[in-house]
């Protein structure tokens, strides 16, 4: 931080407590926190600790847009948030990146999305164009300028949401999980950009679950639990505590001559004229945990949607458990392949947790849905919540419920798209322990994730994708130290069942 950049307090929270309408317990309890100009403060804590509410409080949103009971004061540049006329006036000083990138993209092209905010600043046209170009290059989305935001991958949308906020050039940035869906490379780019902005005097408040590169660039790290600050320190001090180690999983003996349960040959998939997958070959043996990794937009989600027939190959074939997913109906494939989506809220609709799990079982005419529901809920630790309303569960519980909905149908292959996004370390680990147990029971697990720690601890094999192709693969993360730096070999390595885990 430059000396001149580090003067003055940009954001100041004093004994802030907040209780949502219709809630008995406070989401924030006596938070006192300052963010100085040129400082990056990194907030972390378990799922449901009140991190998002803290972002809403710090940006004045709770004062102007929410009901509930709010105590204490929030000052933005020394002025009480209540004294600002509305969010438009606060928006001239504070840029906010929300955790739902999708919801904050308004316009029809990437360029329009960023330009629209600039047009409201009343600055000269030449400066607008310069800022537009600079921010697109800095966030690595210059090549997406003409694309419609809703056609982008999750990570690309997140980069666009960040770019649209950064373009406004506010002196304060508040970011709620801005890199949750970013790959490691994009996270590094965003981290460096934020550090540079802070060095130029911007005050940055970041909330993140992942304690990685973003924490490393922070000046201060704050842990909150149950709505209160429980620890404050430098990231170096606070990251010294070693993470709990997972006990080694019992070895799985995979027959070396077994036919693969998933066999993909020459798979190509095009959206209109854009090839998302290009001639991909992959085989996965029964009982493996295979992680599909790669940068945003590399074709990971497109690949896994072929495993249960949601997408059909433009060219090539995908055989899962002996069924050609290019022609077998999705409803039939669901008995063999379960797909857990990244956001559990895309599927929850029933009145109770038990009904939610029973939905899939009824669809496949299961003989004894009651017993299967209880077994699945027991497996994910939600049996005691069987009568609860699914949407009233915590984020982690909803994710476990989504897994229960799939495993109740006992598919041989379970596919998960970013199952731990937005979850804290404890919940992520809990999900992974469930998957490890399912593997013990003979299920094959295919999972998309950016989480290097999960990949390291749980994957038998990692498939790295780039521009719709497999560019690298390893038996385990530890055996391929080159992957630690995310360098990807341009050489395409076809995978076969014989390269599976030595377990």
């Amino acid at each position, binding site marked *: 931080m430059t000396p001149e950049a580090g003067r003055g307090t940009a954001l100041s929270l004093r004994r802030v407590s907040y209780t949502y309408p219709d809630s008995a317990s406070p989401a924030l309890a006596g938070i006192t926190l300052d963010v100085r100009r040129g400082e990056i403060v990194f907030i972390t804590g378990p799922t449901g600790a009140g991190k998002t509410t803290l972002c809403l409080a710090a940006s004045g949103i709770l004062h102007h847009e929410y009901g509930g009971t709010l105590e204490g004061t929030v000052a933005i540049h020394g002025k009480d948030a209540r004294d600002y006329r509305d969010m438009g006036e606060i928006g001239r000083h504070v840029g906010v990146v929300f955790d739902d990138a*999708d919801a904050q993209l308004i316009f029809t092209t990437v360029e329009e999305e960023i330009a629209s905010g600039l047009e*409201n600043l009343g600055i000269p046209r030449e400066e607008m164009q310069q800022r537009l170009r600079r921010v697109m290059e800095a966030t690595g989305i210059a090549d997406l300028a003409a694309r419609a935001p809703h056609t982008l991958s999750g990570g690309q949308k997140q980069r666009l949401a960040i770019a649209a906020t950064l373009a406004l050039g506010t002196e304060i940035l508040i970011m709620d999980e801005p890199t949750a869906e970013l790959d490691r490379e994009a996270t590094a780019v965003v981290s460096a950009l934020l550090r540079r902005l802070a060095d130029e005097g911007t005050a940055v408040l970041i909330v993140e679950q992942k304690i990685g590169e973003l924490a490393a660039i922070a000046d201060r790290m704050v842990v909150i639990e149950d709505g209160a600050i429980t620890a404050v320190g430098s990231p170096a001090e606070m990251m010294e505590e070693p993470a709990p180690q997972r006990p080694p999983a019992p070895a799985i003996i995979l027959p070396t001559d077994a036919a693969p349960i998933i066999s993909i040959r020459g798979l190509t998939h095009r959206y209109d004229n854009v090839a998302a997958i290009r001639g991909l070959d992959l085989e996965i043996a029964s009982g493996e945990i295979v992680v599909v990794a790669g940068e945003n937009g590399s074709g990971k989600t497109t690949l896994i949607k072929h495993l249960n027939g949601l997408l059909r190959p433009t060219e090539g074939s995908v055989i899962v458990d002996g069924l050609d997913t290019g022609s077998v109906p999705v409803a039939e494939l669901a008995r063999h392949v379960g797909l857990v989506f990244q956001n559990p809220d895309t599927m929850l609709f029933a009145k109770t947790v038990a009904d939610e799990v029973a939905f*899939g079982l009824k669809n496949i005419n299961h003989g004894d849905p009651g017993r299967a529901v209880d077994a699945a809920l027991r497996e994910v630790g939600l049996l005691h919540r069987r009568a609860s309303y699914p949407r009233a569960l915590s984020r982690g519980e909803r994710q476990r419920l989504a897994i229960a909905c799939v495993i109740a149908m006992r598919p041989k292959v379970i596919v998960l798209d970013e199952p731990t996004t937005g979850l804290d370390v404890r919940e992520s680990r809990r999900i992974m322990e469930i998957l490890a147990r399912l593997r013990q029971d003979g299920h094959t697990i295919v999972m998309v994730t950016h989480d290097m720690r999960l990949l390291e601890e749980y994957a038998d094999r990692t498939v790295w994708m780039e521009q719709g192709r497999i560019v690298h693969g390893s038996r385990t993360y530890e055996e391929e130290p080159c992957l630690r730096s995310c360098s990807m070999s341009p050489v395409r390595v076809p995978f076969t069942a014989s390269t599976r885990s030595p377990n």
Partner: protein
Amino acid sequence: MQYVTRESAFHRLHPLTKLIFAVVVVALAVLTSDTAMLAVLVGAVVAAASAGGLARDLLRQVPLLLSLAASLLALTVLTIHSGETIGHLVTQSVPVIGGAFPVTAGAVGLALAMSLRFAAMLFAFQLLVISTQPRDLVHVMDRLRMPVDYTLMLLIALRFIPSLQLEGKRIHEAQLARAYNPGSGLAGKVRGLFPIIIPLVSNSLGKAMVLGLTIDLRGYRSGRRTPMCDLSLARADAAGICCMGLFTAGYLAALLV
């Protein structure tokens, strides 16, 4: 229905010209219930779309319009009995209930007129939306001194159409992955609504809050908007407005005669 990146004649027109076009078509559509005049109006809009290379985009709405027309016909046949009886929903040869639900010329005419009116309005609005970037539309409405709340309401509505479609697709895929198969026909469609509609509404409400906040934080109420590109009326706009004027004059004259 959303903006389509393309180089068409409609795309090159000033947003104000396209807004006037949409308003004029809507006004002419509500002025009369004469099916022949409404058919001429629909024909004119489709011809304009063809000239601008956007006719294919309009045709995508035909299934929606046909189902709307069928619903209107069913409604008017059941509720309106005026003019000559041209048939019965239940033929007179059926015992006891034979001859029930007469179909009258008045009911058919009204359903046809309403369907054509909807078609004209929908096509005109679609031409405006698919050929105009929302920020340009916002800019023009701002210049016309429209209340900012109305402008933002239009912006949010335009934004939500593709967003709802996308969210609906995601939810549908998530339920398909659970072997969801509502079956075909009306019964299947009704049965299949709940697993889709409930998450769709719940998720959309959450997104609406974030969307509203984003619009406020990006300064849409600041009232000092500077468009990044020049928006000025050109010869094509003058020609378009003249054509509209001539057509409107002819249309009104035909109505008065």
